[in-house]
Each structure stands twice: as C-alpha cells, then as structure tokens.
C-alpha cells in the first residue's frame, strides 16, 4: 500500500465552526496522508460530526480551511461534494423506497456512480432489490447506506459512528466490507466513533477531539512509540520527567505517569526506581480524552 505523500487526503488549517456563541470546533490543524484509515475519537458533542460535515461540504467553516486531496472544500458546491462519500450517523435512508429505488437515487444524484459495484454488493450480501428499506434489518440498512457511499467512488470516505446501532455480527460484516474497500486501494477512510476499543484494529491514524479541540493527531504507530507509561516514586515532580505529562495517577508511594517523550530521551532519562512500560492504544486514547481541554491552543501534532 503506497501513500502518495505529496497530496494529503485531508488537510485542515486552523479549522473552526461556531454555532451561535458556542464553538463546535476550534483551531483544528492536521494533515492526513492518502490511504490512511483514520480514527476520529471523542465523547458525544466533542465536534466529530462537525468536523466530518466540514470535510464533506455540508457545512461552511467559521474560521480556517479544510482541503480534500489538495482542493479546498467549499460547502454546498458540486466539486466539493463529489470528493467525499458520507455515511451520516444512523445511516439515513428513505424508508418508503425499495433497495432498487435507493440505488437509482444514488445513480441520479452522482455522476460518478458505479452501478456494477452497487448491484454486485447487494447480490453478494443477499439483499433483495425489491424489498422496502423499512423492511430490512438494521445491519442490512447499514449495508445499503454503505453501498450508497462506496458506489459514489469518491476517494475519501467519511463514516459517522457507522456501527453504533448494529449488533456484533452486523458490525463485523460492515467493517469487513470497509477494510476490503481499503485493501482494493485508492480509498482513505475517516471513522468517527466514541467506542475506542474496536478502533485499534482498523485505524493507522488517530484524531482525538474533546470539547471542540484536537488533543492529539498522528499516526498510531508513532504515537504509541512516543508515549510511555512511567512508574516513578510519588514525590517525583512532573517537571523532572523527560516529557510532557498526559495523565498521572498517584498512589501512596508511587505514581504512574503517561508521558509523551521520544524514545531517545526516555532511554537517557532512566533512573533507579523508575520503570517504563509501553502504552496500549486504548490507554493512550483514554488518557487524552480525560485530559482537560483548556490551555491547548494547537493540536499536539506528532510529525510522521
């Protein structure tokens, strides 16, 4: 899988969106290489849907800019809308339509529609074309919605909590199909979710949002390499640690601190009584999620 690093799939530059007096997203800056599968993590209301809507072209930014494959997104224009496929939360579909009607809808509304792909998927999944959407199971509806997004053949796919309402088997089948599409090449995916445990196997890039602010942005491998779980004596001040302290748990005689430090500094700073452990994906994300969002004016961008 080669990434054309010269043109990032998605690039945000101090992106912000205000609703009335509240900022739904503020000062988001990041650059995601083509071919990545990005996990966009955050609690409900953190700004994930806002970020996706800005990317898709359903929303115009209040501040800053977002570009898809080098082209700045301008909301509600055909050019911008053509570049991103969007699967909104709860996979909205026209419930009175049949499956065939939904596919025809996709064909009518998208010049880039791949009819063979759409019909092939329905056949492979065993979903009858003449059945009404409201008569399908939740998992089947999600698959129809995914088909609509995939058959549009846009190079960027944005999924907003795609499996939240699905049972475990439907979830698995859904994600298998997304991974297959990624494996076929030419697709960058952004998955917004508040369920972290399942993201590790899918994502090689991570964006963590809380309170509208980006807490961390970077490739997963790098992030895991540059964070350590350090066990130190209780009195050790955070300033004495070889990196930024992300989260700290104090016991009677010792403290466990998750720090962001590059491995060279870490190795050099080892002291007796100190013990370093690698951090797991879920631990890392949780620590950043719990971090209070104030005082972070720029995302902690870890260069890849």
């Amino acid at each position, binding site marked *: 899988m080669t990434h054309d690093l010269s043109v990032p799939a998605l690039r945000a530059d101090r992106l912000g969106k205000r609703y009335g007096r509240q900022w739904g997203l503020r000062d988001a800056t990041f650059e995601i290489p083509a071919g990545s599968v990005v996990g966009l993590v955050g609690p409900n209301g953190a700004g994930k849907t806002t970020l996706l809507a800005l990317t898709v*072209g359903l929303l115009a930014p209040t501040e800053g800019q977002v570009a898809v494959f080098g082209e700045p997104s301008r909301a509600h224009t055909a050019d911008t809308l053509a570049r991103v496929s969007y699967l909104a939360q709860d996979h*909205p579909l026209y419930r009175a339509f049949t499956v065939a009607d939904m596919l025809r809808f996709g064909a009518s509304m998208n010049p*880039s529609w791949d009819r063979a792909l759409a019909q092939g998927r329905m056949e492979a999944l065993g979903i009858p074309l003449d059945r009404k959407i409201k008569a399908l199971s939740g998992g089947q509806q999600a698959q129809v919605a995914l088909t609509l997004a995939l058959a549009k053949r846009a190079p960027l796919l944005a999924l907003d909590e795609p499996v939240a309402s699905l049972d475990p088997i439907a979830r698995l089948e859904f994600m298998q199909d997304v991974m297959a599409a990624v494996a076929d090449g030419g697709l960058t995916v952004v998955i917004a979710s508040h369920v972290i445990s399942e993201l590790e196997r899918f994502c090689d890039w991570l964006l963590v949002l809380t309170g509208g602010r980006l807490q961390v942005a970077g490739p997963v491998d790098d992030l895991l390499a540059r964070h350590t779980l350090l066990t130190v004596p209780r009195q050790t001040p955070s300033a004495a640690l070889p990196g930024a302290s992300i989260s700290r748990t104090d016991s009677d005689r010792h403290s466990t601190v998750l720090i962001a430090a590059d491995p060279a500094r870490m190795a050099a700073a080892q002291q007796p009584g100190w013990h370093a452990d690698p951090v797991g994906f879920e631990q890392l994300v949780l620590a950043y999620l719990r971090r209070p969002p104030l005082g972070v004016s720029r995302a902690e961008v870890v260069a890849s």
Partner: protein
Amino acid sequence: MIWVTWRQHRTQAVICAGLLGAITIVAVALGVWMRSTFSSDGLAGCLASSGGAGCPAAISSFTSEFNGGAMMPLILALFVIPGFLGAVVGAPLLGQELERGTWRLAWSQTVPRTRWLVSKLALVTGGLVVFGVAVTLITTWSRAPLDRVSIRLQPPPFNFEGLSLTCSLLCAFGLAVLAGLLLRNTIGAMVAGYFAWEVPFLVVTLLNGPLHIMTATARMPCQAGCPDASTHSVPPVTGNLGDLVLDVTRSGNQMIVSYLPASRFWTLQLIEGGLYLAIAVAALGTAVWLLHRRTT
C-alpha cells in the same frame, strides 16, 4: 433530479390523479345533467331571443336548482382542496427531510442543496399547475350553462373558475414549504401552512364584494314608472345576466345602478390570482434564499 422528485412525490401524484378523476366524474355528471335541463327548459331559445328577459321564472328555477343543492358537494370540495392539498404536498418537501434527518443523505450527494431544492420546487410546482388547470377547465366546462344565466363574479364560482384555484393552490404550497423549512416538522408545517394560507383566502373571499374599485355606474330611465327595481331582479336591471348589481337608487325619473359588470371577471381574477401568486413566489423565494444562506 427528475426521477428522484417523481419518486418522492409519487404517492401525492397518485392521490392528485385520483382526486382529479373523482372531480371529473362528478363534474361531468353535473354538466351533462345541467345541459339537458337547460335545453328541456328552453333556456337556449329564450336567451337567444330576449337575452333572458322573456323567461325570468325559468331562469330562477334553473339557477336555484343547480346553484344550491346539486353543486354543493363539488363546491365544498373545491373550497377545501387548494389549501389542504397545497399544505399536504408542500409541508414534507423540506419538513420531512429535516425531521427525519434524510437531509444528511440528500445534500451530501453530488447535487448541491440549493440546486436540489430549486429543481424539486420547479417540478412539483409544474405538477400542481397541471392539476389546478385541469380542475379549473373541467369545472368551468361543467358549470358553463349556469354561467350563461347567472353571476360568476362571486364565490363559489369565482374561486374555481379562472386563475383563482390554481394560484390559491400554489399559495398554500409555497407557505407550507417555507413552514417545513422553519419548523423542521411535517405535521406542524401542514397545519401552519394551511392556517397561513387561510389568511389570504379569507381576505380574498370576504372582501370579494367590496372590490368597488371595479364597479361601474349606469343611469337608466325608468320604464313603466320605475318599478321597485331591486338588486336581485332577474334579469338584473342592467340587462346582462352576468352582472352583479350592488345598489339601485332612484333619482327622479332615473335609476342609478352601481354594479360589477360581468366583463370585469378576468381583471378581478388577475388581481386575486396575482395576490395568491405573489405570496407563493415570496414564500418559495424566501425558502430558497434561507436554505442557501443557512450555516448549519
């Protein structure tokens, strides 16, 4: 967008077709019946020879037979249809998309939302115009004999002949579409759209009489010693069966008659239709503009 609009409004189109069919059947039956009574009462001959002056009794009985009972159901339907149908067709267009969240599907395809809305509105408006014109033509044909011997400058006939019905329908439609955008709710928008439409409807219907800007005045010599000419004589003192006589006063040897001539029909239709249409255009234009400028 043509297929998508058709598919989303298919049920409504079928209902309209059914409605049109029912109206056609009733109107044709009435029209045939009216025509047969017209000829059996000898009214054609009477009109040709004396312009109606020679058979006032026949005319009276004809008009009371058909103006009252027989046409009532059709008339009631036609009173209700524009407001009701316009609201029912208009409210879900934006209201249901916003209510059910399908806007996130509809507006993230490759068609920008403003173009989506304008295309839809153009197509649905076209369909409503076809429906309105068809109903107007059929009911006007049906009522033609009655129109020859009575007034059509007032409701009920004024409301469904000419431009009035179609423009009224579009007015209700436009208001309901706007209500759907503002309320993000289908049922609420239907109700709000309908009641908003009632305002111009009542204005137009209740104030229909006092359109005295269009009245004409005539001075006529009294014949046979100025009989008690009233506003309701058949034929009216002006001699034209279609005139609406508003006031007759005596002045010496003359009658001063103020009346609405039958020939004013189309002018008045243009005014009323124009009012409805202006509201429709304003409502739809506002909806398009608001959607275009929406930031969320």
